């Protein structure tokens, strides 16, 4: 199964060639397929890259003003700039895929539960499309609500 030695601190895993050519089906047993071995070498996708993908997908969602840094600073949610959206995303590799936590600020005047639900769907879809690893959880943390700009 997973070559434990290859597991780095930054959380990416590497695959065995043998493993790959037998179990290509994504949903089945491939738990964390962020690292894949190919005939010409390894391909590894770091969780930080996944975070950037998830962050940009989240930003494109209707009703999302922006990402905010994980955890409040003095009780205030800080709106992140576009370059650092990944600081508002936490990606963890779990048994059967990826678990993603999003920290967002949404627009005032909207049904927040529905915006959050749309976020979950969009981020799951975009990440799975980009890295081909099942996303098992998308947790949305709404850290603030922003009054609309006029």
């Amino acid at each position, binding site marked *: 199964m997973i070559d434990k030695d290859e597991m780095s601190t930054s959380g990416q895993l590497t695959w065995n060639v043998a493993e790959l050519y037998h179990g290509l089906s994504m949903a089945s047993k491939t738990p964390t397929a962020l690292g894949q071995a190919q005939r010409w070498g390894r391909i590894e996708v770091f969780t930080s890259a996944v975070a950037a993908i998830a962050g940009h997908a989240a*930003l*494109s*969602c*209707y009703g*999302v003003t922006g990402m905010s840094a994980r955890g409040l600073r003095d009780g205030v949610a800080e709106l992140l700039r576009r370059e650092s959206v990944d600081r508002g995303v936490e990606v963890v590799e779990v048994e059967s895929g990826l678990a993603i936590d999003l920290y967002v600020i949404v627009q005032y005047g*909207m*049904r927040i539960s529905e915006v959050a639900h749309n976020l979950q769907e969009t981020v799951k*879809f975009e990440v799975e499309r980009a890295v081909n690893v099942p996303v098992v959880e998308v947790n949305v943390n709404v850290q603030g609500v922003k009054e609309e700009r006029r």
Partner: protein
Amino acid sequence: MASRRPVGVDGPLFKQALLGSLNWLAANHEEVNRLNVFPVPDGDTGTNMLLTLQSAVEDIKESNAAEVSKIAKLASHGSLMGARGNSGVILSQIFRGFARAVEGKSSLTPRELAAAFEEAANAAYRAVNKPTEGTILTVAREAGRAATTAAGDVEASVPGVIAAAAAGARAAVLKTPSQLQILRDAGVVDAGGFGLQLIIEGMLKTVEESESFHIDTAATKPRRSPWTCLRAGGATAQSSSSRATASTST
């Protein structure tokens, strides 16, 4: 010219118009579902829009408010609470913008109606930091613009403004594949945009049937399904969009 009673959009008429939208969307929402490929291709846009509109109309059904502002406010609140899916949330913002624009008004002139359409689109745009063109947003904006152009005419009438909005929406819907690659690849027009077109068309149908208006038949062109031709082809971008244009001219 023919003497036309200057009729505005008051509460009861707007209520009827929204009920007309609901009926027209309910009749066609399956088609909207089939078009749904963006942002997530889960085929629920039509259902989401229908549920949102149902919620918007829920409280209106029992209201006998004479003022258009009261009906608009109910629609805004109802759609906010019942918003479903991306398109539903956007629709709720459209209603919110409309309600704001007509605040305090008991009846709308054609010009005020057009301004409200435009403000509705603007409100929808304000809630997103990276608007995607070729979606319901674009369609809302183009409908508003067309309505405003029509309202500038000295002969402008309420049905004329709504007809222009519907035509503008339709033209914008047909253009969505040229604005959004994913639609082009799938050979479809934007689902949410088409849903909005249906909503405006539903209003138009009601207002046209309403007795208070003299209808200029020239303003109402026969409608053909714009999406079937796109779906039938499905293959290449150029051919599907050219066929779409062809069907418009018939």
